[in-house]
């Protein structure tokens, strides 16, 4: 089963139309990967769909990098009882 990081990268690649191999953990969604405003919203929506979770809008949109997104999603999954292991 894919890890959270792999799934986050896959969703990010699909939304931002990138090769998953280009995406690094330390990359910023906006500065490095070029996410525009509406794409940031789409990313959060697709992460919710991918993991079956609901994220706080402001908190989710304040996450800047891929590795922080992985941490954030892992924590939300834990809080909402979603098994991702």
């Amino acid at each position, binding site marked *: 089963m894919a890890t959270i990081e792999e799934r986050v990268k896959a969703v990010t690649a699909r939304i931002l139309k990138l090769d998953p191999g280009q995406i690094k953990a330390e990359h910023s969604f906006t500065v490095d990967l070029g996410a525009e*405003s509406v794409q940031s*919203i*789409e990313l*959060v*929506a697709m992460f*919710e769909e991918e993991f079956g979770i609901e994220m706080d*809008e402001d908190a989710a*949109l304040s996450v800047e990098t891929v590795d922080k997104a992985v941490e954030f999603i892992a924590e939300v999954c834990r809080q909402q009882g979603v098994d991702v292991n």
Partner: protein
Amino acid sequence: MDKLRKQHPLVDARGPNLLEDIYPYSLPPLIRFERPVVEYIDGKAVEFDFRAVKDRDILITDTTFRDGQQARPPYTVDQMVHIYDLMSRLGGPNGVIRQSEFFLYTKNDRETLDRCRALGHKYPECTGWIRAVKGDFRLVKEAGLKETGILTSCSDYHIFHKLRFRDRAECMNAYCEIVDAAFEEGVRPRCHLEDLTRADIDGFVLPFIDRLMEMSSQVPEELSVKIRLCDTMGFGISYPGAELPRSVPKLIYKLNRECGVPSDRLEWHGHNDFHKVHANAATAWLYGCDVVNTTLFGFGERTGNPPLEGAIFEYIALKGDLCGIDTMVITKLADYMRSIGLPIPDSFPFAGRSFNTTRAGIHADGLRRDEQIYNIFDTEKLLGRPPRVAITDKSGTDGLAHWINEFFGLKGKDRINKIKIHKLARWVIDQYDEHGRLTAISDQELEAKVRELLPEYWEKYKGS
């Protein structure tokens, strides 16, 4: 200069100070004054205490059917009666909109007047407007009016070039004859000092007012002359220190305190040729003129008159209370005026379709968090017009979320967040990025897209 400088230490706070004593939100922002102001007149310092306005019986009068109608094709009788009816509701039982003036010359003019009075409203009282011609008093008398405006133009542009009097004395005598005729008919004359802000104040205006005051002292109080100060070309200036004849403060002072015309017999009538029309009217109120003359939506000759609805909000702001005014009627009047072809610009304050519509995404974000951030007052409560967002590629997802929540009528925790509307946000962006759209997206288009892309919310809140 250095002596004026001082340090301003930060007053730290853990919560906001929203200045709610000035910005109560349930009312327009209140206008408060610290202390009297001083204006130098004829070399003397004269104090004016604007705080007194809260207790003075300041009023609004209307000339939508006279000056307002000179700027457009005639209203039908039915239209005028309906507008008058709404205006009465707007001004409320205290008669904040105290009078409205009517032409008397045609059959339609007279029928309008009769039908308006037949509605039985106490306010606005109906008054007339006639030329300075003796024979015209027959019309006033036949109409059963107690008061009429009379054109008494006072600049030399009018006295010599328009009316062709030989000299000022001949002019003044002619005007006074008309005033006498009004007294004889038992009609109160309201002398309209046309082109006052271009007149010789000391040489003609003040001597004329002195004479009118003398004549008024010979008749019962209810016939005594009222004075309308007409800034016919919009030359009036509100700033302290401005010279006569353009200074609104000095004009009011001269007539009110030097000539002794009581405040309740002074009325300011302005025009908007220099974008000063509302400020000048409010200034007249503050310096001692009790009445400002207005038209609905400022519609009037050339650039228009003080907007009545602007005066209404100024009145509430000065008084700190609605005083019986029904502000919701402003929206009804605006809708009605549009329905009969009166073009109110979309951005027109209080009445335009977009007066509280924001287009910038960053403003929409503020609105989404707290509508008070970008709304002037509770426009939903006072005008039935909640703040809105117009959707373009600049509106952002915040703007779109605000639009949707308003569309579904959702507040507080029920509001839909931006994440849930990502499909609609994508559609909006693609309209511009992919399809090259250059126009705003209409409410109708968005409604259809909401139904298509957010069916679960449509089902929940629209029910079909």
